[in-house]
């Protein structure tokens, strides 16, 4: 699409004016999203839900860079919200799509993002029901920011943090740290970006297969391991349960090249953000069954137990090294690594 204003095929301020250029841009968006977009251009989407209980969530996405080796901000925007719905046990159905575009963004880059949104939404089985587009002046945003809100329905008992109890096994669905290393490597050209790829993926299929296979009660709670990494998730659960959570250092699934990169960068993989990894709190009697179910899915092939919720009172997280020594896993005070999602 070439803008009549600039003739350069770039986003211009008038694309967000609500006037003719806005309509042209919206047509392009709708056309590119194709059959995953079911909006009717009313001020609100009007939807029927096949359940009386729904889950809702929202997330904003400012990832830098917006395009990376095996994904982009569009893929992350769908996966992030789909995964937030799936981890509480809901079936994701609908997403909204809000976009903030910087003047000068090439239209073909926007189309790339929209295409990625379409393909990821198709994989996740969700529909885009409404959207919004705003355009800001050059320098007021960095190319493109997205927001997605999501609605899912409960066809099973919701999973809650409060249901975690001592003895629960802590299971990870896959390696940690890869998304962070991939993005940092692209930002600075560190040489790891071809070897370490982002794990960004919609995990609702994995979790649906798991819950179907193991039945209710086997998995007490699930959380996606995003900003703050595994450490943040474990601290949240330790605080909520009032019990110490202990993980085994040797059991943590970290790709060799990711170990190299995190060692070089002075960061710890347990603090690194991920976009396609969930942490599950599993009834000990169902541990092997859960692992087998996870490993039968392509997004859970490397699932592994990394620790357990102990009987010990005290909301701390401990890491046991190969010599059996425990050390406290500190929670980061702030984000050392901004804009990873």
């Amino acid at each position, binding site marked *: 699409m070439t803008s009549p204003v600039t003739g350069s095929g770039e986003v211009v301020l008038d694309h967000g004016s609500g006037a003719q250029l806005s309509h042209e841009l919206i047509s392009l968006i709708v056309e590119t999203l194709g059959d995953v977009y079911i909006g009717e251009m009313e001020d609100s989407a009007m939807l029927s839900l096949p359940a009386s209980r729904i889950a809702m969530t929202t997330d904003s996405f400012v990832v830098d860079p917006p395009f990376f080796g095996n994904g982009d901000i569009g893929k992350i925007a769908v996966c992030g919200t789909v995964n937030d719905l799936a981890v509480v046990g809901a079936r994701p159905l609908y997403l909204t799509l809000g976009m903030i575009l910087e003047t000068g963004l090439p239209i073909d880059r926007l189309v790339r993002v929209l295409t990625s949104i379409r393909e990821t939404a198709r994989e996740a089985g969700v529909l885009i029901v409404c959207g919004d587009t705003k355009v800001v002046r050059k320098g007021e945003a*960095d190319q493109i920011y997205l927001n997605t809100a999501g609605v899912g329905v409960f066809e099973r008992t919701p999973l809650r943090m409060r249901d975690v109890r001592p003895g629960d096994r802590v299971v990870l669905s896959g390696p940690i740290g890869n998304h962070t290393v991939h993005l940092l490597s692209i930002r*600075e*050209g*560190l*040489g*790891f970006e*071809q*070897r370490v790829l982002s794990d960004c993926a919609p995990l609702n299929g994995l979790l649906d297969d798991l819950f179907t296979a193991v039945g209710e009660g086997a998995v007490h709670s699930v959380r996606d391991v995003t900003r703050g990494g595994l450490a943040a998730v474990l601290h949240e659960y330790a605080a909520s349960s009032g019990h110490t959570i202990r993980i085994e250092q040797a059991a943590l699934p970290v790709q060799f090249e990711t170990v190299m990169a995190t*060692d*070089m960068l002075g960061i710890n993989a347990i603090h690194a953000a991920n976009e396609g990894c969930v942490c599950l709190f599993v009834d000990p009697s169902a541990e092997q069954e859960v692992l087998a179910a996870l490993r039968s899915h392509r997004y859970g092939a490397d699932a592994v137990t990394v620790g357990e919720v102990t009987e010990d009172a005290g909301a701390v997280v401990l890491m046991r090294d190969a010599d059996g020594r425990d050390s406290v896993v500190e929670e980061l005070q702030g984000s050392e690594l901004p804009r990873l999602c």
Partner: protein
Amino acid sequence: MGKIAVLTNDLQADVVHKTPERTSAMAEAQPHFTAFLDEMRRRGHAVYHLQLVNLPDDPNVERDLDGTLPLQRGSEGAAILADFLAEGDVVVEKNKDSGFYETELHDRLQEAGVDTVLVTGLQTQICVQTTAADAFFRGYNVWVPSDCVVSGNPEDRDRALEWLGGYCATVADSKEIFAVLDAEGGLPRKVVKILP
């Protein structure tokens, strides 16, 4: 057996003289560094200079305090320092830390039949480290002459050399490297165990 090439990183005024510490470290290293390059050339090994050029639209580029973009293409500060250049050397522009990141370096080395690279220059803990790691991932036999890498802070250099030796490269000083070349006619590849 493939050919051996020397890769230098960022031997440019804007990098070398960015801080007094770097200038001083480079002054100390320069005599044996240039002697190493001369001897490698004399033995028939090519020298590739990786020239860091900052692109104006790169949001991650570190600007000077006054907002000036250092290392601009064609600028004096971006030129490879004359003391390190010789006839026949190859200059390859790069825009990020690793000399392989979206550059023609890998293709040129492959065309030349190079399978072993000796990674030198500054800073050890950034461009040398990332270029060496990238070379390792691309299948090169990687050596790092410990007396031909420079950092403003010697602790950064030592930590980077330890990392390189631990993960992906053979670290030895230039005298040892020439001794190995004399004794074996080449530089043996370090066996690195990649964990599953």
